[in-house]
């Protein structure tokens, strides 16, 4: 018996997770009060959940409501836990898993958009190429000198990833991304 227990060497029962992780988008409606964001992200770090993207802003000023959009990854079991744990937080009104909701509505997934500011500096052919590609990606020039551009681009995360990758050899200086904003298609609210 000693030998068997030595093998595990732990007071805890450590089981391997057998389900495959999936990525999902959570919309969390909260009272806009001090500390509410810390409660939400503290829950993720404290319980070992992932945050791939986080967006937060007040959405209904009169009611002091903020909407937090979180892209997270985990097994369906963990994602269910995350939703229930979020619902326990006192200032949290509602938590909707937009990806699950889209499935229920027979849709391919929630609409996800991100905005990025991308600064590119360079001269000559690189500069022309950057401007041409920006046009192809429907990116707007929001600031420019003879030495640089700041492009504003919106779209799916994958589109922005691609744009950034293309700009890299053309003199990419810095990037700022907003994180994902998301909602489900159709006339219904969350």
């Amino acid at each position: 018996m000693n030998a068997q227990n030595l093998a595990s060497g732990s007071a805890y029962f450590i089981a391997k997770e057998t389900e495959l992780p999936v990525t999902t988008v959570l919309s969390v409606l909260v009272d806009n009060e001090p500390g509410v964001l810390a409660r939400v992200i503290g829950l993720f770090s404290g319980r070992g959940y992932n945050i791939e993207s986080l967006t937060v802003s007040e959405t209904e000023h009169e009611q002091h409501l903020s909407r937090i959009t979180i892209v997270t990854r985990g097994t369906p079991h963990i994602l269910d836990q995350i939703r229930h744990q979020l619902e326990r937080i006192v200032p949290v009104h509602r938590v909707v898993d937009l990806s699950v909701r889209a499935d229920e509505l027979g849709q391919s997934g929630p609409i996800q958009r991100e905005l990025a500011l991308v600064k590119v500096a360079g001269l000559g052919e690189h500069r022309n190429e950057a401007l041409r590609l920006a046009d192809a990606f429907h990116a707007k020039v929001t600031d420019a000198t003879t030495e640089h551009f700041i492009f504003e681009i919106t779209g799916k995360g994958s589109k922005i990833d691609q744009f950034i990758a293309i700009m890299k050899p053309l003199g990419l200086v810095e990037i700022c991304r907003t994180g994902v904003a998301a909602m489900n298609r159709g006339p219904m609210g969350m």
Partner: protein
Amino acid sequence: MKADKQDSDSRPSQRREMTGAEMVVQALIDQGVTDIFGYPGGAVLPIYDELFQQDKINHILVRHEQGAGHAAEGYARSTGKVGVMLVTSGPGATNAVTPLQDALMDSIPLVCISGQVPTSLIGSDAFQECDTVGITRPCTKHNWLVKDVNDLARVLHEAFHVAKTGRPGPVLVDVPKDVQFATGMYTPPEVSPRTSYHPKIQGDIEAIKQAVALMLTAKRPVIYSGGGVINSGNEASKLLRELVELTNFPITSTLMGLGAYPASGKNWLGMLGMHGTYEANMTMHDCDVMLNIGARFDDRITGRISGFSPNSKKIHIDIDPSSINKAVRVDVPVIGDVAHVLEDMIRLLRASSTKPDEKAIDQWWSQIDRWRARKSLSYTRNKDVIMPQYALERLYALTKDRDTYITTEVGQHQMWAAQFYHFEKPNRWMTSGGLGTMGYGLPAALGVQIAHPDSLVIDIAGDASVQMTMQEMSAAVQYEAPIKIFILNNQYMGMVRQWQQLLHGNRLSHSYTEALPDFVKLAEAYGGHGIRCEKPGDLDDAIQEMIDVKKPVLFDCRVANLANCFPMIPSGKAHNEMLLPDEATDDAVANAIDAKGRQLV
């Protein structure tokens, strides 16, 4: 669900202007609070000044803020009321963290009011400043920093509401010193809970119907109840007993749920889990329908998840949706308060035309009786040395007919107490289950004794745990709280040693206490009464002396040094792979006993 339980001798006050410090005291009075536990300091002096000038709230001065928290927990657990602690900023607040987390894990309603440096100094690293709401955010159900005196009354009332409703838990209200001095409008408690907080009390009737249908098909059923039954109130325990009576189902309970069903009841299997009885664990393993009432499939209960009750359909009643499917997937979840759900369940059972399968359940009982015959709690008596199990058997025999409350520390003595002390009523057993806080029992006993001044309150302790909060003996003496600290002294951190014996090749790394205080002299130094007992033959008289003395008592009960706590589910094992005492003594434990120890055991 406990809103009606706060007994208040004064009518709620009216809206009127007062200082923040006055508001704190007024809110406590309006919430029906009669006793609080605390420790003063710079940032709470205005509140202490108000406490000085009134006589409705009885303040118990502890010797360390951790003691205040555990005392408030003991007070809450033994009364069903909200426990209240009052601490200063900085170290006062950080010392409160352990009891807050303890209360969070065991779902104990607790309100902690902490002082904070003035708002103008917050963030400046001022003297005795810490980010109290930041530090306590993950160890409270909710917390608030009040920056405007006009919010204070509302926040305090909301704090009580959040602490005691839904799944109860600890909350903290941080009050900067300038807010305590400032004048603002006090508002009495009113029923306007915030829109985002609405715990579900009533169970979904369709889910309850499904559960009842499943129960009526059961051939090998078991009820597994937990602390949720205690938290739901006396009515829940009454209904639980009625349900067992009605169905003749066997019932076991977690550590936190002891007393909800009486240990003398004929359907009682004893506690389950890592140190539970053979019959309880085997019944759980082999059952076909499991009814979990207010428990959370803790890892100390389930053993290896893949081997946990593999062939059963599981019903889970819990007020917290996040408990459902967290550790174990269940077939029929019912979200709601235990008393409310049981009421519906019993009504449906009575109305049903089908009845429980009596014949199958009788057969199930004869199987259970065979497991019972294994007598998994047996131990070898010794006429020279006090066996810890024997000490608890005698303690139980001599105190069971009294109005007794039991608290414990954490370790072997705690498990033995759960196995050998038998509880007939809820709210009589206060222990740190989830967090496993050594040092919980002594201050908890103080809190229980303050709530029940004429009852017999015993802390079943270990020699290591009890030293963690020993200073509260001084508070017990000050308030003439005659708590009895019954120390099972084996000079070891017994449970640590047991694990080292089982898992770490018997290398007893730092689990032996070479120097222990003389507990008798220590008791006397505090102004209490000390008793030492070393022989089984002297034990009854010594326990009687402990009961009769009207002072706090430290009872140094010298027990067999190397006794271990069995039965036990070793790590990574399932319920049907228990280690029983007669199997364990020889091979595993014998290695640990040297020549000197062998004489003792």
